[in-house]
């Protein structure tokens, strides 16, 4: 083949550059049989990006669950009795009778009648300072301040407690209305539940996309190494030997990508957690517990396992086509 001067010069430059590289950055005496970079291809990048997205989505779902559980724990067993009588004296009378009746009721663990100051503080934002100060609630005031009684039910009384409270108050406080604190949480619980399902669906989609991306990236990287696989095969490598080499190289590359993706996700979660600290229990980022972090750490590990497994089955399939 006749080469032009330009081609000859280009080849000389390439050889020279290669020789300098080999002199300055020599390969170690026992270089791995496979080039990590050549085997991995885009796999580390794919794993890093998909891991980061999946971990953030999963963390969102877990954090919402944690917030819902915390709110539920705070409100479960809580009951509020409100007495809004026609006149202040009657209201006070019914409240006192209600407190007495409730203290003797089985299943009630704590009863607290809210003092005037506390109730006024609750109403002040709605009625304004002038209304509260001009017509100081009392016997002669036109403003009848409702009485509020907070009580807690024992865990085993939570299901039937509300009805028994209503029955117990029917006579001593006929103007009392009884409501479980959990009823206020119901709309929020529904919203959180919907968001959780959204997070689950997102994670499922991302896991599927990650699996598909890793599969395709691994297969394309291995297709590029078809020659190396064949050379090893012809030089007397056992199928399992070649598969193990590729599996190890692909696994290590995926581990690097997974670790990077997880680190990015962790930083994002912690940063977001600080922003939403008031919504969570406050002791961990975004309301995540140690076991949530373990669950999240399984995502990059699963990515690595998938990449290694894909490499193994792809190489074995390639080798099976060779006699």
């Amino acid at each position, binding site marked *: 083949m006749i080469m032009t001067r330009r081609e000859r010069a280009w080849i000389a430059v*390439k*050889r020279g550059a*290669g*020789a300098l590289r*080999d*002199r300055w950055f*020599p*390969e170690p*005496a*026992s*270089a791995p*049989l496979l*080039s990590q970079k*050549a085997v991995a291809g885009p796999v580390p990048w794919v794993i890093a990006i998909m891991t980061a997205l999946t971990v953030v989505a999963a963390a969102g779902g877990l954090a919402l669950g944690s917030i819902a559980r915390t709110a539920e724990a705070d409100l479960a067993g809580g009951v509020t009795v409100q007495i809004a009588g026609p006149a202040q004296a009657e209201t006070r009378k019914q409240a006192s009778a209600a407190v007495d009746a409730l203290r003797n009721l089985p299943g009630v663990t704590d009863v607290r009648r809210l003092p005037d100051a506390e109730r006024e503080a609750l109403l002040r934002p709605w009625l304004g300072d002038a209304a509260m100060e001009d017509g100081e609630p009392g016997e002669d005031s036109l403003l009848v301040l409702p009485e509020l009684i907070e009580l807690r039910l024992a865990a085993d009384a939570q299901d039937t407690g509300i009805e028994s409270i209503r029955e117990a108050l029917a006579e001593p406080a006929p103007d009392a209305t009884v409501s479980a604190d959990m009823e206020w949480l119901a709309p929020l619980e529904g919203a959180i539940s919907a968001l959780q399902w959204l997070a689950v669906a997102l994670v499922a989609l991302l896991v599927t996309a990650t699996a598909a991306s890793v599969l395709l990236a691994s297969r394309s990287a291995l297709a590029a190494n078809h*020659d*190396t696989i*064949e*050379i*090893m095969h*012809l*030089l*007397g*490598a*056992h*199928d399992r*030997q070649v598969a193990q080499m590729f599996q190890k190289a692909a696994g290590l590359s995926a581990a690097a990508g997974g670790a990077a993706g997880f680190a990015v996700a962790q930083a994002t979660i912690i940063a977001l957690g600080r922003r939403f600290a008031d919504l969570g229990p406050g002791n961990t980022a975004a309301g995540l517990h140690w076991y949530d972090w373990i669950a999240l750490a399984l995502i990059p590990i699963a990515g690595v396992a998938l990449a290694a497994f894909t490499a193994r089955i792809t190489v074995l399939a390639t080798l099976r086509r*060779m*006699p």
Partner: protein
Amino acid sequence: MSLDPSPLDLAAPGFGNPTGPIVRFENVGLRYGAGREVLSDITFKLHPGRFYFLTGPSGAGKTTLLKLLYLAQSPSRGAISMFGEDASVLSRERRTELRRRIGVVFQNFRLVPHLTVFDNVALPLRLAGTAEEELVGPVTDMIEWVGLSRATNQRPSTLSGGEQQRVAIARAVITRPDLLVADEPTGNVDPQMALRLLHLFTAMNKMGTTVVLATHDSTLMHRQGDAAVMRLEKGRLDDPTGVLRNPPDRKGMR
């Protein structure tokens, strides 16, 4: 299929027959897909410790025949016996074991691009599980023998075609195989290096390795006067009693 007891015996008259053949082809044919046969009715035996040239015009099927010899291809018909074992019934494990007894110099070298010269030459030993401390000496000596000591730590892309070919040869003989198959091993080197490489093959042969060397180089064939010559024409092996016998027939090599 059972093997015919008397296929073309390339070690027969004048060559002696120290032990049984290590390779035996009987009525071997090969076709790719539904195409025509690229090899037809190939029948011969190779004996241990002998030197064979495989010649013939381009496209005659030399490389394909060599592929059958180093177990990279399975025949479409006929029977092949390697080292006394029927190749058609070999398990994958056993086939690999037999491959380790065969050294191959590929026509296009097939060096691993990201490995240095040292690692390419050491590759068959590493695949066979040789300890690192045991392979350094032999690999270094072999690289020195093919005249590439200065390039030990270079990658193939920085070497010339002739240098790459010498690395491929070093890799093929490093395990001292029982059978050495070389496809145009002197095609890219100068006559002096070609002669030197022939001496290497001869030395291997004297140590007991059966050598099968595909070449167009008639000078090389004349220098190895006691070798047998197989000539392929359009996928068929010529009559051994004429062209294929030692001394090589000039007419047959043209």
